[in-house]
């Protein structure tokens, strides 16, 4: 059996050599590799342009460095994906353009060459994907490390999710839970740690413009930290299906100056002393 296989192998190699390899022979602009390269280049340029210019127009206004990490990742991954996608598309498209054969009624076209593999191409492909994955991993792990690095001077805000509303409290600004509100007002320029829990089912606490979210699980407290870099409005949405009015589980949020923040706390029942102390508090 094996000598028969060897015989077939030799035959196949003979035939493969007779078919002119695509990287040799003839003027450069007639070679298939060149034409594929042109298609590839055009698609890559379009893909890179999309990656560089489109995300900022469709993402919401980023208001924290963590959100910026997400935005930068989106841009970088799109730019990196463009040449890879372009490679597959250009080879596939060129094959269709160059080698589409007229069929004779129901008879198929003449068979193509019996090329069963190309160790060089396969190794380059797999090796290339490994390199790409390593790049992506280093990028992702880098950002993740900076996000999870312990921070100091954290402002604690408690978040409670229940069906179908968010309520926020500022511990230490008053008796019990402190000032409570259904609007998330935050002072600018602070590292804020959200301590999140749920009262009935799992909800998803997602202050959209900060680019971070964590689930609100009943029975557990989860946390994450964002830096409130910019002033302005933001939306809190629920990102985990939680029943009837999951779609309505929005909360209004705003990052204000520190003095506006203390004023707001006092309007909601805190004493001036506690409000100021809280606004300056940290770990």
């Amino acid at each position: 059996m094996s000598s028969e296989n060897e015989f077939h192998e030799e035959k196949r190699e003979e035939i493969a050599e007779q078919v002119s390899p695509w990287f040799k022979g003839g003027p450069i602009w007639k070679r298939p590799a060149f034409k594929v390269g042109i298609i590839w280049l055009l698609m890559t340029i379009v893909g890179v342009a999309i990656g560089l210019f489109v995300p900022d127009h469709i993402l919401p206004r980023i208001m924290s460095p963590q959100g910026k990490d997400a935005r930068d990742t989106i841009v970088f991954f799109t730019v990196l994906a463009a040449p890879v996608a372009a490679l597959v598309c250009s080879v596939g498209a060129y094959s269709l353009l160059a080698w589409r054969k007229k069929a004779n009624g129901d008879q198929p076209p003449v068979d193509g060459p019996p090329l069963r593999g190309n160790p060089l191409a396969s190794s380059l492909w797999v090796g290339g994907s490994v390199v790409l994955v390593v790049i992506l991993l280093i990028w992702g792990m880098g950002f993740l490390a900076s996000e999870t690095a312990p921070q100091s001077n954290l402002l604690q805000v408690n978040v409670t999710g229940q069906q179908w509303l968010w309520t926020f409290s500022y511990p230490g600004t008053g008796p019990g839970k402190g000032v409570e509100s259904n609007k998330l007002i935050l002072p600018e320029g602070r590292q804020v740690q959200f301590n999140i829990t749920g009262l009935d089912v799992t909800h998803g606490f997602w202050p959209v413009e900060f680019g971070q979210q964590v689930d609100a699980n009943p029975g557990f407290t989860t946390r994450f930290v964002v830096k409130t870099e910019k002033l302005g409005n933001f939306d809190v949405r629920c990102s985990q299906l939680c029943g009837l009015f999951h779609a309505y589980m929005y909360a209004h949020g705003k990052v204000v100056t520190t003095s506006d923040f203390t004023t707001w706390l006092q309007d909601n029942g805190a004493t001036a002393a506690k409000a100021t102390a809280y606004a300056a508090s940290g770990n």
Partner: protein
Amino acid sequence: MSTALLEDTKLGPKAGGLYRHQNFGVALVVGIIGAFIGWIVSHALLQGSNWGTDMVVTVTLLSWAISFLIAMGAFNAPFRWMLGHDQDHEDELYAAGVGQGWKRYFKFCTDHKVVGTQYFVLVMILFFVGGTLAMMIRTQLLTPHSGFLSPQTYNAIVTVHGMVMIISTIVMVSGPFANFILPIMIGAKDMAFPRLNALSFWTLVAAVPPILSSFVLGGTDSGWTTYAPLSVQSPPAQDGFSITIVIFVISVTVAGINTITTTFTMRAQGMSMFRLPIFVWGAIISSAVGLYAMPAFLMAHTALITDRVVGTSFYVPQQGGAGWLYENIFWIMGHPEVYVILLPAVGAILEVTATFSRKPLFGYKIMIGGLVGVAVLSIMVWAHHMFTTGWAPSLADPFMLTTELISIPTGIIFLCMIGTLWRGSIWTRLPMYFVYLFLWNFIVGGVTGIYLSDVPADQYFHGNMFVTAHFHYTLLGGAMIAATGGVCYWFPKMTGRMLNERIGKTAFWLIAIGIQVTYYGQFLEGFQGMPRRVANYAPIFTFGNQSSTMGAYTLMLGWLILLAAIIHSWRKGEIAPANPWHAKSLEWQVPTPVPLENFLVDPIVTSDPYTYGEPDAPATQDAPARVHAGSTQEGGH
């Protein structure tokens, strides 16, 4: 030894025993009666107890399933064996459908070709149901604050749409093609366990009423993932949902065991493992992953049932449980499950690619390595669905690593496809169209998956429409389009008629455009920040949603036209020759319609099925004419 066609055997009047009286209609009636009895008994026993409606629903639906299967005849053979009155040869021939004509499609028929055809029809029905529900969802989302559906109905529809589609996509290639085509492809006469084959089909049929019962029991409001503790709180429809899963897992497990055993033990002489068509590899690797993953699904839902019905607290935090436990067990199933969906479809589309490029499959062994790599890695990535749950933040890095690694073997699929197309002799018949659509859709789906595998990006994208668009691109745009390519490819063999290409190509373009418009709209919504599974949304998402709905209507039209093509061609299409594509694998070397035991002469295999372009390869022969009763043929059975 008789050399007449086996299917022309005349059976005695008592052949088949009880099977003679058992069919789908009878089983339906008996199943309903059984459900009713179960309802009455559980109601009477539990009257006034704390266990209430959930227990009644559970018992009623289980009674339905068991009664239905008994009345179908699923347990006839084992019971007869236990009683010492085993089935004889005539009974087995009857069970294989001999002498029953079209009626055998409504009975417990052990012929793998009949089971394959039954699965084909059931899958189309299930896709129609799931697709109708999708149309409800998209119609609701046409305007930001639509009053079309109440929020409870909307959540119920979202849940059932997801589950029906997941069920359909899991069986869409393994059901019809791993049953009908695979045994012929490997040179076998039937599958290793013909009765289990029929059992897997009818068990799946038994699972359909429980999932649809959701709409009359208050609807589940927790999505197809039915996260606890929300699902512990849900109306009684959740019990119907969990029972569906229990029944479904049994069906898939039985089918998986059958596929793997058949491939390992029943190959024809000369068919070594490395001469198998790549589709077979896709099917068995997918079955292996399924056998690993599906029990986790069963476990997750069994614990959910006991939480709801009996009051255990696996998932109830207020009593010491945790929603995270459910999420982990669920995703241990949930991630491998998408590869159970994908791998057979990829196997099918690779077959189509080789046949319509008239070239051997590029990198056959590397492709097998890639499929195995995907399967092995798929069991190690589940917590990428849980990056934002707050569970074990220190595990984010390892899971990000494994998830990004899985893109390497998945990329090998692209390598093999473009390698096969390159320098091929591209024959643009209808199945080839789907090859190109698959390539494009799977690129988009795969790349967007990479975004989600990166934790900082996922912290923005989790739970929003970007995720929905990503998995629809991979499951619908990738797996389902590949399966459709398989349907167009194997249609002549399974139905004996050619699928009308004109109508098929019209459908193709509508589907292709529909997919892009629908899901680009959803990617836009995801970038803008729209959460998923919402019945209403903020007005800034209006453009994305309206585009997506328009695309969905186009897609619906495309699928309906394809359905029309299938129905019309099946009834009145041009009669197909045995090997219309002049392909080299074994299923094309047998006559159409395929004889009962597939091969009139036992095949001896001398090469793999990718000998295109080799000058001394065995030519594809026109299939031998059917042998009529009374004539002799050397080497027959």
